[in-house]
């Protein structure tokens, strides 16, 4: 495993060098050199210029993620448990996902105002689906012997759900959460593309308007960092939660 880190860093350095070389032959407007981007990033961080934007986007991500994945989990359970609801609601779920949020942005602004709410709503909407789908699937494929056991124990639907279906489906549900967490980053940024003057998304738009590509890339770096942090956080909490599920997992 130490090897991985070494190779990882090596690969990263090689990629940076290739990028540096490629960008040398190109206008900074199109593809800035990584050195320039890192300097811009560093400057933005040390002068505190980026801080309010980061904080804003981060809080939108976290709030949207919390609301969206909670609702996705909840509706996933409802739809997984009640086939009636599944068939009834599924067209609306698909509609909420297949419609590009960017197109609805003006509506969102009208409904939820220019503030954080509309961004949080967009983020939540985007996180919602992977968790929903994975929850529905995961709680449906439970070992039939175990389900029989719970029936024999006279477990109510609620008890079976809580003590069997959810624990047994946890790996799948966590996979959904990992997808959601990364989509949340995009969600918040897309939300900020319209109707925002604070936040990393607004900064991307502003930097595009001023054709300040290095700044834009610095923001993209930041977003990747945020995505990675959140993903790793889910991974760690999964390791903790799923300690006992390693039974089926590769050694």
């Amino acid at each position, binding site marked *: 495993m130490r090897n991985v880190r070494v190779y990882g860093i090596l690969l990263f350095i090689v990629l940076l060098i290739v990028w540096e070389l490629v960008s040398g032959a190109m206008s900074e407007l199109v593809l800035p050199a990584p050195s320039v981007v890192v300097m811009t990033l560093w400057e933005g961080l040390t002068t505190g210029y980026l801080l309010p934007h980061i904080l804003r986007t981060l809080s939108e991500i976290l709030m949207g993620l919390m609301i969206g994945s909670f609702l996705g989990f909840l509706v996933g359970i409802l739809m997984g448990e009640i086939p009636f609801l599944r068939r009834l609601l599924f067209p609306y779920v698909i509609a909420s996902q297949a419609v590009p949020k960017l197109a609805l942005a003006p509506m969102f602004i009208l409904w939820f105002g220019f503030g954080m709410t509309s961004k949080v709503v967009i983020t939540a909407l985007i996180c919602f689906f992977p968790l929903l789908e994975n929850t529905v699937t995961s709680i449906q494929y439970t070992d039939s012997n*175990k389900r*029989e*056991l719970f029936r*024999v124990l*006279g477990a109510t639907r609620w008890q079976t759900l809580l003590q*069997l279906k959810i624990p047994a489906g946890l790996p799948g549900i966590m996979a959904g959460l990992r997808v959601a967490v990364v989509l949340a980053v995009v969600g918040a940024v897309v939300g900020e593309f319209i109707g925002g003057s604070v936040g990393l998304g607004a900064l991307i738009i502003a930097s595009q308007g001023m054709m300040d590509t290095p700044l834009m890339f610095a923001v993209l770096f930041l977003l990747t960092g945020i995505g990675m942090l959140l993903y790793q956080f889910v991974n760690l909490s999964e390791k903790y939660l799923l300690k*006992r599920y390693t039974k089926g997992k590769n050694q």
Partner: protein
Amino acid sequence: MAFLEIDQVTFGYKRETPIITDVSWKINKGEFHSLLGRSGCGKTTLLKLASGLLNPVEGAVYLQKKKVVKPSTAVGFVFQSPTLLEWKNVIDNVLLPITLQKKPNKEEINRAEYLLDLVGLSSYRSCYPEELSGGQQSRVAIARALIKYPTLLFMDEPFAALDAITREELQDDLLRLCQMEKTSVLFVTHDISEAIYLSDQVALMEAGKIIYNLPVDLPKHRTAEMRYQHSFNELCLNVRQKMSGQEI
């Protein structure tokens, strides 16, 4: 009416082919009945019907005069495979029937520990199921079925994965417990002498029907020596011959 009454029950997983045809059976309070029969003859299916896990196509099952439509919580069930929850350790698996409803209290935890001790797994209380041997897993499942002092026990080959000695110990323990708590038992086994040793009555199944019914009139208190007595062996042979289709 008997404590548990299976009344002309017919059942098939697919409509066309009935697996159980027109089976009737009665178990009185505190009685120990065994079900013998060749592999695939429908023992497990009958047990599931009797417990309400499956519902008969025709006929009905009555428990204390009430028609059974779904499993009752006063019933303990040991499945043919142990079916433990791999994310709970041994003691938590034993306590599962209780934790389903509420946090177990001191007394219930004591009961769980007592049962674990009974099945010889005290030292494994914090192990997880995958760290247990096959026989150890089935013993945990037995302890789990006993935790709530069931008035009726369904056991599907509970001792199949156990060695002769552990098996005999557990047979005696089970008999003692059931007599103490007046538990009725419907017990599936492939071991004829086990059936005779444990039961007040032995039923022999074949192709979905009960073809033979043997009341066992040995002294209620069974002892190890009985196993080597002539009357005991006579009964075993009797069943054995019925099973292989020979007339006695």
